[in-house]
């Protein structure tokens, strides 16, 4: 596909999602109490959007991932939060 074709197909969708991101961060700011590790991970991951590097989707996924390599002693539960709690 040409770049104009990609823009024709996806610009409005991407624009919508970008504004949703801004609205989400505004919503968090308006909230009370302390945010947790997920917001830190989110802000770190967002840097990849403007970096100009290739493979941005992969970089974003890696930014949210547990980078360790050894199995953990016991599963703490069944669910996932979307960000690795120990990343600071």
């Amino acid at each position, binding site marked *: *596909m040409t770049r104009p074709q990609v823009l024709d*197909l*996806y610009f409005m*969708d991407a624009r919508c999602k970008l504004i949703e991101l801004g609205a989400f961060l505004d919503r968090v700011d308006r909230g009370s109490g302390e945010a947790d590790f997920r917001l830190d991970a989110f802000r770190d991951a967002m840097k990849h959007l403007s970096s100009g590097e290739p*493979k941005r*989707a*992969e970089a974003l*996924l*890696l930014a*949210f*991932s*547990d*980078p*360790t*390599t050894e*199995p*953990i*002693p*016991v*599963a*703490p*539960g*069944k*669910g*996932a*939060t*979307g*960000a*690795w709690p120990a990343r600071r």
Partner: protein
Amino acid sequence: MRYIEPHGHMVSRTTDDYQDMVTAGCAAVCEPAFWAGYDRSSVDGFRDYFRQLTEYEPARAAKYGLPHFCWLCINPKESEDVKLAADVIAAIPELLDKPNVLGIGEIGLNKNSRNEMKVLEMHVDLAARHDQLILVHTPHLEDKLKGTQLILDVLKADSRIHPDRVLIDHVEEHTVRRVLDRGHWAGMTLYPISKCTPARAVDILDVYGGERLWMNSACDWGESVPLAIPRTALEMRRRGWTAEAIDRVIYQNPIRFLSQCPKFKLPAA
């Protein structure tokens, strides 16, 4: 359009979904064993579930002319209880000759714990001893990268396992390359929020080609769309894919992998 749904948890869906899928061109559905949303309390609980997968659900699908196949295992979400898992795994061989059983799956990891690793190794051994195909679940979200690598290492460590008889499911941009490089098949799951959206799945096909990749909806009792594959086919068409190229990914590729099990046969068109 015709397609195979290679990963759908149909026990969670209504008959309306069967009707919609067949109307959209679904030619077969394959159902891996799954977590029920709660931990089953006994081996007999699993026996009942396996009976649902091998007897009741194929009959329900047949009412809509849809061939139904399944995979058996204890899901990684229930792997912390190693004793129960061992007992369930011991009960599986008696079911492997059932006509709609394709292999062992969806096995894998959930939180990447030591007990989950033990149960994964037991499943891989079971598949190797009975010459079964393997369908692998990779963990969710932040756990996927690490879990995928641990799973790949377990599979590589067992010399009885042929990589092209293993499909590693739920790949995303950060895991697809390492799965394909090991010689396995890779599955992309089309979810509205987590895993792959249709647009990203087609991106992955654009970048990595469609040689050993399939797509699935993994429709279950969570947020998921039973018609995700035909909707992604529409996305492919919008991006200029030919009807032949789309058919290769959503119909022929699943058949190529699944036909390694001689029981996977579709009725003549």
